[in-house]
């Protein structure tokens, strides 16, 4: 004979969730008790279709009373509790069943996995809960909120610990963005907890829950204060919620942007729980934010190398893998170590193949514009490109990094049924940039009038003609677009394109929206290698409109290898703002490219003085010193062939590179 299990729940207005919940236990529960505390939707009807015994209960601001009402109705030997926003994982039924056949145990801990954040890419974290116990009249919940039964059972049995069923897993969806409780529901909880705390001011667990609720509501500083009170009152190493307490304390300070205090709290936490991945990860994130990359690196490495986290640490998933790898990749990039960065991004992506952000960071490192073959080779090694979606994704990533040629290669492998208007537009842009105008125009024409991308498609068609220098069609297409009554700013850019080749030289003012478009056109023109056209275009724009964009223009010209033009724009920018480290850095790179090393050294030093936290500036200057040294060595070796030591040193310098 098997034991009888009663599933107990308390619910209110859960029509969206209760079906999923009850379905998951349909094969395990011998009896379902649902206490409804005042639903006005279909909750109880749905419950009844699962054969539940539903009873109404007048809500009295006390969770224990409601739960105990369900216990009063339960007839099984064992009670199992679920909330409506939870479900039992598929493999758990057998475990649950097996556990109730053990005669020596009064109750069990089991695992709960909470999903938080965005529904599509949720974060996960595990924790332990006490949900399964013997049905005895003396086992009743206490506390109005964050009701407890585990302690009650312990007190009656002199039992202080219960077996942990790691394979009995409850999935909890209540913290997902789509599910997140409305403000008043949170507020209601807070009020209840406040009341509870008034009654039991010395109950640290209640205070802890109170603080957690404050933290969830974004009251970070208040929460931190309460967490601190708890950690003074108890020894975090002696309570099951101790690790979480330390994490919450640091997180609350972090939420309040009290970074130094957060770090301090974190170290206190680590002193107690030196292998807690979440504390290391949080520390890494804080240090990264304040640009202390050394400490950040250390912390992420430590997060990676922590052992498997005990369940009650409620460690967030991914901290010992993809999340930390991703940060490490970014840190490696800061130190100009592309090879390591790539390694970390690959590790991150391998650990979580949904994490395309890692893939996205890899792309510029592979330099798909200048080295398309190598980039393709690497991408093929890293990704499984068997499915069309993967090709589409990679194509889009490459497209976003202006690697049109490489992107096209992937787009061309995407079959027709996956085409969306955005995809068509992007593919057309790639074709334009490959000077395959006919195909591009054919694609652009397939985007229909009512499509939201219709205008952009037309604009690209205009650009296509403009790049080709086809004045007549530019004029025709331009007039068509002008007749569509677009914004004045866009119109002024279109007019600029129409009149680029006109003899009459007038300067046009373009507002900031128009400039965004214009800069995109500049980039595309340079991508096509048409510097003359680009200069012509810019010569028609009033300096007044460009004044805010010198830096961007400088960076674009630098990116496409037009160093002296880049330099001009950057100097223009410096006249407005001479404390911009990034500009000095670009100038240094340009000077280094022109082999004007004394100037390059000066600019790198400037960059360092304006922003000494950027590791890249140190590394590039160090590399430059070494380069100058090597050149001096080379010249000396030629000048003094009778000193073989110079040749040896030269070889060494070469070998190091």
């Amino acid at each position: 004979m098997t034991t009888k299990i009663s599933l107990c729940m308390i619910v209110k207005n859960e029509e969206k969730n209760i079906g999923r919940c009850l379905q998951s236990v349909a094969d395990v529960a011998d009896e379902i008790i649902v206490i409804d505390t005042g639903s006005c939707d279909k909750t109880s009807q749905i419950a009844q279709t699962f054969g539940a015994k539903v009873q109404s209960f007048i809500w009295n601001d006390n969770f224990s009373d409601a739960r105990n009402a369900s216990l009063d109705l339960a007839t099984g030997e064992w009670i199992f509790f679920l909330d409506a926003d939870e479900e039992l994982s598929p493999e758990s039924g057998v475990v649950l069943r097996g556990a109730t056949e053990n005669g020596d145990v009064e109750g069990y801990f089991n695992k709960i996995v909470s999903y938080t954040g965005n529904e599509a890419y949720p974060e996960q974290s595990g924790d332990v809960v006490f949900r399964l116990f013997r049905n005895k009249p003396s086992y009743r919940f206490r506390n109005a909120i964050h009701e407890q039964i585990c302690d009650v059972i312990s007190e009656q049995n002199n039992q202080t610990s219960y077996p942990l069923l790691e394979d009995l897993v409850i999935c909890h969806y209540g913290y997902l963005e789509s599910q997140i409780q409305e403000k008043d529901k949170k507020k209601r909880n807070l009020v209840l907890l406040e009341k509870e705390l008034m009654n039991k001011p010395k109950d640290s667990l209640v205070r802890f829950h109170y603080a957690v609720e404050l933290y969830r509501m974004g009251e970070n500083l208040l929460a931190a204060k309460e967490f601190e009170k708890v950690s003074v009152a108890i020894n975090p190493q002696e309570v099951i919620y101790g690790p979480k307490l330390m994490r919450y304390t640091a997180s609350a300070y972090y939420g309040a942007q009290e970074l130094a205090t957060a770090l301090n709290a974190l170290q206190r936490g680590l002193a107690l729980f030196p292998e807690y991945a979440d504390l290391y990860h949080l520390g890494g994130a804080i240090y990264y934010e304040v640009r202390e990359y050394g400490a950040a690196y250390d912390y992420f490495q430590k997060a990676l190398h922590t052992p498997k986290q005990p369940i009650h640490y409620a460690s967030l998933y991914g901290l010992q893998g993809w999340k930390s790898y991703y940060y490490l990749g970014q840190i490696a990039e800061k130190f100009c170590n592309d090879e390591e960065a790539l390694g970390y991004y690959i590790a991150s992506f391998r650990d979580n193949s949904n994490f395309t952000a890692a893939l996205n960071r890899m792309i510029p490192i592979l330099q798909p514009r200048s080295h398309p073959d190598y980039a393709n080779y690497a991408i093929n090694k890293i990704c499984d490109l068997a499915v069309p979606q993967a090709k589409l994704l990679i194509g889009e990533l490459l497209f976003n990094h202006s690697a049109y040629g490489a992107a096209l290669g992937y787009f061309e492998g995407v079959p027709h049924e996956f085409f969306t208007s955005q995809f068509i537009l992007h593919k057309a842009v790639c074709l334009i940039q490959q000077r395959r105008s006919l195909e591009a125009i054919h694609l652009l024409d397939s985007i229909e009038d009512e499509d939201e991308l219709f205008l952009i498609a037309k604009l690209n068609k205009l650009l296509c003609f403009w790049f080709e220098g086809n004045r007549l069609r530019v004029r025709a297409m331009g007039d068509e677009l002008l007749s569509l009554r677009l914004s004045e700013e866009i119109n002024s850019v279109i007019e600029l394109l129409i009149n680029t080749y006109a003899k009459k030289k007038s300067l046009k003012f373009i507002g900031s929206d128009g400039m965004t478009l214009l800069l995109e056109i500049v980039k595309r023109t340079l991508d096509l290698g048409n510097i003359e056209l680009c200069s012509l275009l810019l010569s028609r724009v009033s300096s007044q409109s460009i004044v805010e964009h010198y830096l961007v223009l400088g960076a674009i010209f630098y990116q496409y290898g037009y160093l002296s033009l880049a330099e001009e724009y950057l100097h223009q920018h410096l006249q407005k703002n001479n404390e911009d480290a990034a500009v000095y850095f670009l100038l240094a790179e340009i000077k280094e490219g022109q082999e004007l090393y004394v100037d390059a050294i000066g600019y790198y030093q400037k960059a360092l003085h304006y922003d000494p936290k950027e590791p890249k500036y140190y590394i590039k200057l160090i590399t430059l010193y070494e380069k100058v040294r090597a050149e001096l060595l080379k010249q000396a070796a030629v000048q003094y062939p009778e000193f073989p030591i110079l040749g040896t040193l030269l070889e060494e310098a070469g070998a190091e590179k």
Partner: protein
Amino acid sequence: MIPRISVAMIVRDEEANLAECLGSIKDEVDEIVIVDTGSTDQTLNIASTFTSKIYHFPWLGDFSAARNFAISKCSGQWILSLDADEKLDSEQGSIRQLIKDSPETEVFGLPLLTYTASEYERFTVMRLFRNAAEYHFVGKIHEQVVINNTNVVGIGDAPVICHKFVTRKQRNKKRWRNLQLLKRELCNDPDNYYLKYYMGVEWLGLGRYERAVDCLQTAAQSISLYQPMFRGPAVRYLVDCLTFLGRSDEALEICQNECELNPDFTDVFFEAGAILEEKGEFKQAIDYFQSAIQLGDPPLWFFHSKGTESFLACYHLGFCYEKTGLYELAENYYWQALDTNPKYTCPLYSLFLMKVTNLKSSEVFDYFNKKNSFIHDQWRATLAMLFFEVGLPELAAQCYEQSVTVSGDTSIIRIRSLLYSGCVQGALNLINRIDRASITTEIKIEEILAHILNGDCSTAKLQALDLWVNSPQQRSKAWAMLTIIARMSSSTGYSRTEKSREGEVIEIQLSIIENCLRFSPKYLGITCWGGAFKKLAKTVVDILMESSVESNMKLIDYMQGKAEKLRSMLYYKYSAARSLYL
């Protein structure tokens, strides 16, 4: 009845110190007794202006014999034993007060402070005792007063005996002599741990750590806890030796053991912290430094290194917190250290490094300005030097503009700051304020360079020639200047440097390049960048590249040095991520 106090001294060739010593005690004692063991200088003349009780005693290689002879000539009821290189630092009447306050006491331990550069170490010495037959000196060297009954021993915090600051060199001169005497004594008295202790101190002073460890280990193990005035320094020196020898685990064990046995002994807590810090165990180190601060000055009979209870501990706490990434705390401790002892400027270096690798340069300046750091002479000089060193001469120059009192400062660092921040005329004006007779070569060189940068090669040449003619010692420098001037005026107008001066000439040339590279005006226009500084740097580089294989090698090494220096900055800031760039 008011007791009479006699000071008993033995002297030999102490003309440099004696007047100061006697001046500090003449109003504190009733009688001065001086025993001379063979002076050949003005010692006796000086002594005779203070006292008529001057005696001669032939030197027998036995300090106790001489001292006991001096005691025998004293008529007071109390004896104060003092050396000529010491002086008394006390309020008037403090000896009498001490005696009056503890009538039972017959022998007093007094604090002896020996000064180092910015702090002092405190020992306790038995120097004040009743003039009675049972209190006499024993031991041929490091003689001590015999004490048979410890119940009559007391300790006083005043007066304080101050030992004159002596350089390492001066002190080492006596060490070999002391060692000979100690060895002989030990033959007679092999179980005397105090002699072992003193021997250890001498070996330590001479840098013979292995030998010192042997002696001090025996001493520290054998001197009982009830003799903290010896045990303290013995332990402390032993720890020093072991640390020097890299045996830090042993040193740590000794400290930790001593912390338990002597929970009031501040210095060992500090030492334990320092060892842990060295090992990178910052969190543990922090606990020990905190304890040291909490303990404060240890009880008087303990040896004590001033600062281990305050500014030194604060400085090290700052360092440890910095290393653990708690920067705000670190900063607070650094400032606490500076406030406690403004002369101890190490924390200023740490703060500067912290700030200059974190804030943009103008903010670094503002930070120190807000803390009023430029008012304090020593801090201003330190900060100006640091700003200059990291390539920010204009901010170095600004350090001097924050306080009206420094307008007359003509230090080399201020001159260089002005010159290499492009304020050539300002630098020249400052140099003109200096009396020509007292102008240093260093400054003369900058003056010549200022004229070169001003485009005034003829004045520069005149001054360089003047340096050549009038300062034969400085001819390499003059030569270096002349070659640059010649090269600046025509492309061939200089000849090869003599081999004998080449090294020195190259050194100067490299320092010119280094300083010119510091030039970094606020706005770097396409045409404005460089100018005269770039031309000068370029000229010197050309000279070095054309001169010889040595000069080429030095230039190559210089570039490597630049790379390494910057790498060490990067390492300082991001040491934890070193695997990414090393």
